[in-house]
């Protein structure tokens, strides 16, 4: 509450909701609420983080803030004359025009005055590291050069409230570091009012002084960043564990990889075990598209969390293999020590297998599994 009395309120949302009509077919349509009930205030100098999973309504919220859309219910009150802009890279870029012409056009779309852009053009060229290329048509640019120009132009805008959607860094590694740095500086600066939307909890924690957590179009939590992010992360870890449980119930092996790391892990033996080679991964029933990429902090949570114990116990009961008796075409899955016929390639894929995973076994081994179960027959 302290913050709100100290600083002037620039913008306030009261029970704001937005719905879209989704067309099912030519005659039927259904209503989808992207935002249901959103209430918050934005004060001068704030760095407000908006955190939430994909599809929580973040982009709709940004469009409301930018004034691109109007709410269907609720009220948005803004200070008169308030300029709010979404940091949009490469807005309105035209291939046939030169970098210089595009910079001016894009800047004007972003609400800058032509003269201001002209004055800062040297700055833009220098920051984008374009040199003489600025007068070449955009169609000759590499995607990295386009991205650099787009960022350099967008960064020049100076509205009352700047909206940042995930994009902090663009281009190659060097430029990315440079752009992330100045963007972070700007978000943290007390002179600028920023709304930063992200699904990265650590980044929000680092850059924002206040945060709201958006879930299914509703503000689940708002206030001090540390508190909000904490709630969000706990909920996310729980959700994640539930999801893994579901997958295990379906008999799929669970592989995870921490975002940014290369090592793949399998959930097993009440632990998160690393997989050392591709062959091992394949042998365990791994498929690239089945790997769950998780944020580092969730990965850590998964290693500690009590619930994972339960998850892993279920996993152990579900060791999964695919076998083919020598000289035969029929493929079987082994589950809980029992043989299950696999009817078709689709069936195989559904069970989490693929042709490379199938082990050939002798007929004796096959009958042994059928009659006595897997124990002692094969060293899976």
């Amino acid at each position, binding site marked *: 509450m302290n913050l709100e009395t100290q600083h002037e309120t620039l913008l306030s949302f009261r029970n704001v909701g937005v719905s879209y009509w989704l067309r099912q077919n030519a005659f039927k349509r259904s209503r989808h609420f992207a935002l249901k009930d959103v209430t918050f205030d934005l004060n001068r100098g704030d760095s407000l983080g908006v955190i939430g999973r994909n599809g929580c309504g973040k982009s709709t919220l940004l469009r409301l803030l930018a004034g*691109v859309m109007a709410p269907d219910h609720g009220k948005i009150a803004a200070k008169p004359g308030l300029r709010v802009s979404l940091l949009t890279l490469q807005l309105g870029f*035209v291939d046939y025009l030169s970098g210089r012409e595009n910079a001016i056009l894009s800047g004007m779309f972003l*609400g800058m005055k032509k003269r201001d852009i002209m004055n800062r053009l040297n700055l833009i060229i220098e920051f984008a590291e374009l040199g003489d290329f600025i007068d070449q048509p955009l169609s000759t640019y590499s995607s990295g050069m386009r991205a650099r120009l787009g960022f350099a132009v967008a960064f020049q805008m100076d509205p009352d409230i700047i909206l940042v959607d995930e994009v902090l860094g663009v281009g190659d590694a060097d430029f990315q570091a440079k752009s992330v740095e100045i963007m972070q500086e700007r978000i943290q600066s007390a002179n600028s009012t920023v709304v930063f939307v992200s699904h990265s909890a650590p980044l929000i924690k680092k850059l924002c002084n206040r945060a709201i957590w958006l879930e299914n179009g509703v503000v689940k939590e708002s206030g001090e960043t540390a508190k909000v992010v904490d709630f969000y992360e706990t909920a996310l870890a729980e959700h994640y564990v539930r999801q893994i449980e579901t997958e295990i119930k379906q008999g799929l092996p669970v592989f995870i990889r921490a975002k940014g790391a290369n090592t793949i892990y399998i959930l097993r033996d009440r632990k998160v075990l690393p997989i050392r080679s591709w062959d091992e991964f394949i042998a365990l029933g791994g498929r690239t598209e089945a790997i769950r990429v998780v944020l580092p902090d969730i990965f850590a949570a998964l290693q500690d969390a009590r619930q994972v114990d339960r998850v892993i116990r279920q996993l152990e009961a579900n060791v999964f293999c695919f076998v083919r008796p020598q000289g035969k075409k029929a493929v079987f899955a082994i589950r809980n020590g029992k043989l299950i016929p696999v009817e078709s390639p689709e069936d195989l894929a559904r069970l989490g297998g693929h042709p490379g995973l199938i082990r050939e076994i002798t007929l004796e081994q096959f009958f042994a599994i059928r009659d006595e179960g897997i124990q002692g027959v094969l060293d899976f």
Partner: protein
Amino acid sequence: MRCIAAVWTYRHLIAHKSWADFRAESQRTFLGIAWWLLDPVINVIIYYLCFGVFMNRAGGDYIPYLTTGIIAWMWFFSALTTGASAIWNNAQVIRQVALPKIIFPVAQIAVCTYRFLFSLIVLFSILFLWGYRPDAYWLLLPLLMAVELLFIAGLTFVFAAFVPFVPDLANFIQYAFRLIFFLSCVMYKLESLSPNAQAWLRYNPIVYLLDAYRDVLMYHTLPNFAAIAAISLFGLAGAAAGMLLIDRLGPIYAKRIVR
């Protein structure tokens, strides 16, 4: 009112956007801007061959008559058809920044107007070659251009307001106005038709508009001012209605346009 104020506030953006589109168009092809002269010339040649030579309509002032009609028509047609989809075509920008949507059709009409002004070179050259010299009547040309511009704006704004909801409308406009082209006395004279057909074509305002250009540029007569006033009034009403619609529908476009 708000729309007119918006056009004024964003005049620099409109000017730069239309100039950029103009530049982009000239960069797209090898001959670039030369096409803006070639296009009307080629059109005149085609219609001269088809209607003048093969259908035996040529004679006397046919070529200047045809050229005046084609150039004034092409301005109208290109501005209307491209301007009508201007909001729809700028969906990318509309979904990212809050701008008054009216600026997109306005900028597009501006692009077509530049092209029209350019093609006047062709028109004046042909008139000159056929022995027409400027006189006091030519001073009315800017007035006629203003009237046509108003007429263009009136139709374009209204269509532009609806195309984002029903993109098929853009196609419909193409076909409908291609038909109207043949009913507008561009490549034949009104007097050459049967009285019955003449009576019908007199309901087409474009017939009067094109004739007004010819009266002033070729026939040393004053245009039909009653018709000119009616066209202006129609254009004004359309432009006002279109602006109001675009203003009212403004916040809805971003939600509806999914491309």
